[in-house]
């Protein structure tokens, strides 16, 4: 485990209820227990040079009835290019709402929209929460939640007639 750089320690001081740990070199995961604070955290990160979002992923945890929202954030600034921050937070099934970060990082636009259609996580403040990759008449179900089952086949078959 490498030492945690200064900017991360500063974030830890400024925002409560977050856990920061380093996974391997140059990968830090920030776990935010209060999703309402995500915008403040994002602004802090942006001020310390993290200027783009690589991905926004949803993760489904059906047992705990919650959905994880994972932002991967990186920087094009010299010296920080190799750092990828994993910003994790959770929303519940009952209220899958979180603030959109496109006002801070417009590069999250595509991925937030996709996460909305796949998991039903509503990003407050996103300008176009419509279906994206799915067909226009796809309705009601969120395909990447674990409750959406797809058929799998076995590997043994009987000889056909």
């Amino acid at each position, binding site marked *: 485990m490498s030492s945690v750089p200064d900017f991360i320690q500063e974030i830890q001081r400024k925002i409560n209820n977050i856990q920061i740990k380093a*996974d*391997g070199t*140059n*990968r830090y995961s920030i776990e935010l227990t209060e999703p309402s604070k995500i915008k403040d955290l994002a602004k802090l990160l942006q001020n310390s040079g993290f*200027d*783009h*979002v*690589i*991905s926004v*992923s949803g*993760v*489904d945890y059906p047992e705990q009835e919650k959905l994880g929202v*994972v932002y*991967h954030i990186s920087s*094009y600034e010299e010296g920080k*290019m*190799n750092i*990828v921050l*994993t910003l994790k937070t959770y929303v519940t099934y009952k209220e899958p709402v979180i603030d959109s970060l496109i006002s801070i*990082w*417009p*590069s*999250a*636009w*595509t*991925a937030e929209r996709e996460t909305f259609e*796949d998991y039903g996580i509503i990003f407050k403040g996103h300008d176009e929460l419509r279906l*994206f*990759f*799915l*067909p226009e008449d796809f309705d009601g179900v969120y*395909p*990447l939640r*674990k409750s*959406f089952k*797809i058929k*799998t086949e076995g590997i043994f078959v009987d000889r056909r007639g």
Partner: protein
Amino acid sequence: MTEEVEKILKGGLEVEIVPVEGELNVGPQHPGSGHMRIFVRLNGDIIEDVDLDVGYVHRSVEKLSENRNYIHLIPLIERPAILDSIHMNMAYIMAVEKILNVDVPPRALYLRSFAAEVNRIASHLYGMGIFGVFMGHSTAFMWGFGDREVWVEILQALTGARVTNSYILPGGVRRDITPVIMEMTEKAIKYTRRKLNDWKGIFVNNPNIKARTQNVGVMTKENAIRWGAVGPNLRASGVAFDVRKAEPYAAYDKLDFEIPVYKEGDAYARTLVRIEEIEQSMKMLEQIMREIPQGNILSDRFFKQIPPIRLKKWWEGQHRIVMPGYYASFRPPKGEAFARVEAGRGELAFYVISDGTAKPYRLRMITPSYRLIKVFRELAKGSRYADLVTIYGSLDYFPPEADR
């Protein structure tokens, strides 16, 4: 409108008069749209707004991956970009290796870089070909595909398949390079260097192409970062970012190369970046062939599991790795990994969460073209209608890769 004109219009000339301001539906069956539909709102010749209707080739990699074993995903994740399959494969395997905690022998790392660079050249040539034909330059199209064939031939000799190579396994690669392939590569490099001169003559330095691409689709450095541009498009806007330099993987920390960066951020700069990257890739290939270390191409942990009889036949006979039965259904430990590589079109990232079963709990695949959706949308606004395809081609946006 005078009465006379109205009379004429009533007498059989009724057509729905399309206003100057109108919506054009480009695609999905349009020569310049690719696998998607582009809603274009025009004001005269100027595009006011663009809406991309993507998803025509969506193959749901992320859902399928939760229902397949890790090994089954290798051919699946390379399908989105079959002409860039080595990179797709490599990023995924790097993420899996991080969870498995496997060390890869140096020769395998060099071979990964070798295959990746060959693939990058092929991918760039393809991209330039498509770009050319979008501007009506049919020679660039045919040359792009023809010259790419040379590199595809090398991949075929190395991996056994032309495009969907499935070459990289957790812990190493499947086949070793042979002197025959090295000789092929040397010849291909010589050929491509000669040919690039003619490419410059007929395409890159052609005043016609310059006029069509310079100052078209200009993306400033700030906008490139804001919108999330990647790869050659980002580098053409003046951001010197390349995963190969920023976070070297495979053998890139030992290779000597430069990343071409241009300031302008227009379509022409993007083309120049691609051309120069081809040159750099060829330089790297030469270095790889000179410096490739001897040794094994699969991690010892798996190599030991191969039955000795088979090892003798395949590894010593044909320089091929055969898989131990372990691969059929391995269970990596709990954990998560984020791996990224510099694919032909830009930064490609995989985020894999393992819950200790044989199938990933979650696999997130972020392809370069996926991140270009936003860029394309924003760049097209305010450009001329004829430049829509120029922007499309210069970004090297590849719909199947974006849809995944």
